């Protein structure tokens, strides 16, 4: 069930009009000269993401990976109903803190993005932005069936069906929805991946940047942001 | 006697002023002031008056040698002449002004000339 089929892609030929505030405009500077503003170009860094090499010494990289594995900072961003299962993780019952897991409110300080359940196209845009703003190495965990194949929304016009078409998913946690225990188990597995140096989603994303972008743009019709959100 | 003249003079002044301050017609005001001026003149001469003495002219009636004892004070008389002439001058001037005012607006009411105020 690919998202990119005829029935899903409606009306791609029509140019989607830019929002008012994103259209080029001109302002007058205090000294009288007129300055042309192109909001999409001028305000954002256009640099594409880089593939970051691993450390030269394997032992150093292993040490770093160990640290990364034991310091999973999740971006506090609930995309779907699965978010409700995330909260109990921090309660005394599950206490994910003991594994070095904690929530961060800003993508700059998070390195784990949990897509918690179905992801509407509208939210996808935000998820992409949030993901791209996280510093690498960064990890994506797809939570629940919806991120794997659309789940019960398999035929929805407005949700994506396969998360790894759009973001480099390191790990899916199946279930509808998965219990906190399953989440913990998933995080443990993620840790293992990280320790092994296999969780290089960020580099993968950078390497296949064009492919991901093409996929993303094919579903997000009002693509009104730079290609990479620094 | 002298007091009567002086009192009359003062009365004339007050009367003239009363007229000048209560009548809004410019001509009547002028008349009032003329009256008051006259009063002043009367007061002036009455001050120089000394009972039983003669006018200060040194003719046969008053020989030079006795002048000091026989004549009244000549100074107020000299002054009053000047005062009269000056009063006349001012009155003439006021009349001319009255004419000018009347020509300008066709009114002789002093209350009509109050554009300048505050």
């Amino acid at each position, binding site marked *: 069930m690919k998202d990119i089929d005829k029935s899903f892609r409606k009306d791609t030929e029509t140019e989607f009009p830019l929002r008012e505030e994103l259209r080029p405009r001109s302002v007058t500077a205090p000294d009288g000269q007129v300055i042309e503003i192109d909001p999409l170009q001028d305000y954002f860094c256009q640099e594409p993401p880089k593939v970051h090499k691993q450390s030269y010494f394997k032992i150093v990289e292993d040490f770093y990976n160990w640290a990364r594995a034991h310091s999973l900072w999740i971006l506090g961003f609930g995309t779907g109903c699965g978010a409700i299962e995330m909260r109990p993780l921090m309660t005394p019952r599950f206490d994910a803190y003991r594994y070095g897991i904690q929530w961060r409110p800003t993508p700059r300080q998070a390195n784990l993005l949990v897509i918690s359940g179905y992801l509407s196209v509208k939210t996808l845009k935000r998820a992409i932005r949030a993901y791209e703003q996280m510093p690498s190495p960064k990890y994506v965990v797809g939570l629940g069936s919806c991120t794997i194949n659309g789940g019960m929304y398999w035929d929805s016009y407005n949700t994506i069906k396969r998360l790894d078409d759009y973001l480099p998913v390191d790990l899916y946690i199946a279930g509808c929805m998965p219990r906190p225990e399953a989440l913990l188990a998933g995080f443990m597995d993620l840790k293992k991946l990280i320790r092994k140096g296999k969780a290089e989603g960020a580099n993968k994303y950078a390497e296949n940047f064009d492919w991901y972008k093409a996929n993303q743009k094919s579903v997000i019709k009002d693509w009104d942001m730079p290609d990479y959100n620094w | 006697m002298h007091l009567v003249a002086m009192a009359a003079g003062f009365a004339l002044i007050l009367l003239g002023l009363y007229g000048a301050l209560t009548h809004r017609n410019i001509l009547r005001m002028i008349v009032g002031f003329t009256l008051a001026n006259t009063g002043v003149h009367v007061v002036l001469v009455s001050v120089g008056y000394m009972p039983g003495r003669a006018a200060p002219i040194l003719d046969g009636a008053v020989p030079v040698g006795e002048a000091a004892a026989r004549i009244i004070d000549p100074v107020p008389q*000299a002054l009053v002449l000047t005062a009269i002439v000056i009063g006349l001058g001012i009155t003439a001037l006021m*009349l001319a*002004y009255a004419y000018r005012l009347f020509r300008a607006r066709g009114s002789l009411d002093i209350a009509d000339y109050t554009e300048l105020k505050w």
Partner: protein
Amino acid sequence: MSNRFSIRHAAVLGLLALLGLAFWTLLAGYVPDTELNRTAAYYAENTARETGAQNIVTAIIVTYRGLDTLGEVTVLFLTAAIVALVLGQSKAPRGGTGSGFLPSGELLATGTRMLLPIILLFGAYVAVNGHLTPGGGFQGGAILASGMLLLLLADPARRFSHRIIARVESVSGLAYVAIGVLGVALAGGFLDNRILPLGQFGALLSAGAIPLIYALVGLKVGAEFSSMLESLEETEDS
């Protein structure tokens, strides 16, 4: 302008009553002198010797307080000039006024012709005899001007030459000032009458420059009054 007794009237009355209080104080405190004060006494004793004038008042006016008199003459000069200025701006075109009046009648015209020389003569007499008898330049001048008034009454349309009047006025004024200045040069000070000999006490040509000054004053006053009368006469409304 109502004749009603209003608050304004009452206020003015009150005000004048208070002013009257001051006057009353003056009046009540007034004690007439029994002897001449020192100024008057000086005049009584020295006028004859110093000025040669019989009429002490005239001596005071023309000599001792000559500066006042010069000022007085100037007041008239100014008034005449200003009345001309004030009225000059609303002057009627030449010949355009007075014509509305009816002729003043035979009686007045004839009377004028008869009286005028006498009036002029009398005026001159009063003016030049000021140092001897009551009278003087001012009185004489006024009499002269009354002659002029009579003329105007008799013939309202009549016009006199302003230039002549003005010349008379100015020349006599200048002469007066010149006499005053001569006093500085020749005698004891400004307007000292002793620039001319004092002459015989009681004679017409005595008392130094006093008769001369009074004659000038007479001319000047006459001219000034005439000038004022004429200015008034020449306005549009007359």
